[in-house]
């Protein structure tokens, strides 16, 4: 559908035009690789079978998707404040089409960033995935992007303004990152945190990426921990729920003024 194409294309044009955002998204994983990698590598030292920086790669790619897709979807808040959302809501398309367009744009934007970063990162940490691994990795990135994009849409529809953004970072982004298995295996965590891991869409994405990239270490307990099919199903479920929740929320802002939220109380 043309409208979806238009919404997706706009996301890409905006992204490429914001040079700071491009640099941040490409540079962020390497900053983590250098600084977090240096610290955690000493903790992991002695386990000769794994190289910590390579171990980080799936988590870093998951992080790229998370930031890429989540931030793109959260831009709906800016769209609302700048009035652009009104243009979309008065167009002859369904609310769910607007939500789908934003979610797809976020997914593809996160995927594109992850593919670019993978091209730079994997050679750097001497990971050479098989063709099957690369394809599985791509599937993981797309599914994780969709789950993150729809989550971002739901957040965007529920937060009042971009000022609440810091709250999203503290209470959503960082917990999701640390409870994703991106930096350490989650199997040693206590039951409460483990339960949180299962509620975390990013964890399934990272687990799938570990299947894709660290298959060789699966025997040592550093590869994927859940079945591939479970990862895929969980991500699809998160994406489906996200879309179903976000579409009416976007539509509910029919007034498209921030105050439209007051009606709900």
């Amino acid at each position, binding site marked *: 559908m043309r*409208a979806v194409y*238009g919404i997706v*294309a*706009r996301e890409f044009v905006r992204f490429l035009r914001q040079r700071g955002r491009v640099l941040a998204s490409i540079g962020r994983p390497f900053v983590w690789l250098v600084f977090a990698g240096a610290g955690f590598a000493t903790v992991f030292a002695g386990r000769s079978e794994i190289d910590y920086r390579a171990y980080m790669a799936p988590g870093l790619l998951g992080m790229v998707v998370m930031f890429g897709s989540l931030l793109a979807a959260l831009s709906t808040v800016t769209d609302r404040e700048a009035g652009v959302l009104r*243009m979309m809501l*008065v167009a*002859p398309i369904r609310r769910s089409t607007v939500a789908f367009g934003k979610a797809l744009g976020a997914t593809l934007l996160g995927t594109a960033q992850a593919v670019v970063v993978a091209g730079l990162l994997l050679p750097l940490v001497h990971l050479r995935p098989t063709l099957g691994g690369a394809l599985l990795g791509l599937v993981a990135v797309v599914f994780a992007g969709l789950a993150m994009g729809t989550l971002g849409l739901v957040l965007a529809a529920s937060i009042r303004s971009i000022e609440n953004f810091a709250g999203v970072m503290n209470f959503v982004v960082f917990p999701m990152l640390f409870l994703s298995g991106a930096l350490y295996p989650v199997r040693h965590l206590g039951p409460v945190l483990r339960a949180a891991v299962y509620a975390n869409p990013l964890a399934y994405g990272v687990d799938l990426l570990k299947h894709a990239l660290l298959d060789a270490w699966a025997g040592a307990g550093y590869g994927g921990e859940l079945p591939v099919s479970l990862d895929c199903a969980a991500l699809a479920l998160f994406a489906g729920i996200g879309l179903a929740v976000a579409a009416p929320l976007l539509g509910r802002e029919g007034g498209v003024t921030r105050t439209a939220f007051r009606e709900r109380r």
Partner: protein
Amino acid sequence: MTAAAIDARGLGKDFGAIRALDGLDLEIQDGEFFGLLGPNGAGKTTTVHLLATLLAPSRGTARVAGHDVVRQGLAVRRSIGLVFQETTLDRDLTVAENLRFAARLWSLPDGVARPRIDALVRQFELLDRRDDPVRTLSGGMRRAADIARGILHEPRILFLDEPTAGLDPRARRLLWERIRGLRAASGLTVLLTTHYVEEAEPCDRVAVLDHGRLAALGTPAELKRAAGVGSLEEVYLAHTGRRLAETDGA
């Protein structure tokens, strides 16, 4: 039998305790040029948003182009164009990119959209700014681009919510010429809200809205005769004067 372009019955909207629109009955004929006047907060924008399916009515019903605004929102939106009181452009995109984005939202094929965008950009004298980000345009130029966006898909019914606020006299003239051209060519129905009362002079009919209620409705000539005054401005003041008197007293 031609159905009315717009048919509102007892249309009302509350925002919490605020009664923004209180039982509006309004029928606007196909091809009519209709002016909605009223002071700040009278409910003009609320009316337009209800008719454009962006707000859900608290009471009453409305049909636009024969479609119910609650149950057939998509069909309503297919027949209308809306120039919002506040800008809807993406400030980071260029004028041309904004118009292209709108064309895609309205599912116009590229072959149709391209010549229309070229023509609109030329008509609104934005030709040498078409590839500049909207952020760098003056307020009036942005307004002109907004209006171009609103009529790009050549709607049957056009809502203009204070379209000329911030436009210089020349741009204003260009807008009205463009609207006159569209009306002559396609029998466009126009619902205009404005504070510039003289702009409503060429309207077929005018309504004055005050505190969410219709205070007056008729052709400009009828309204002037009924109020015993010589200009629409005096009609407007006669029907919304209560508030002016209050302000004077303060």
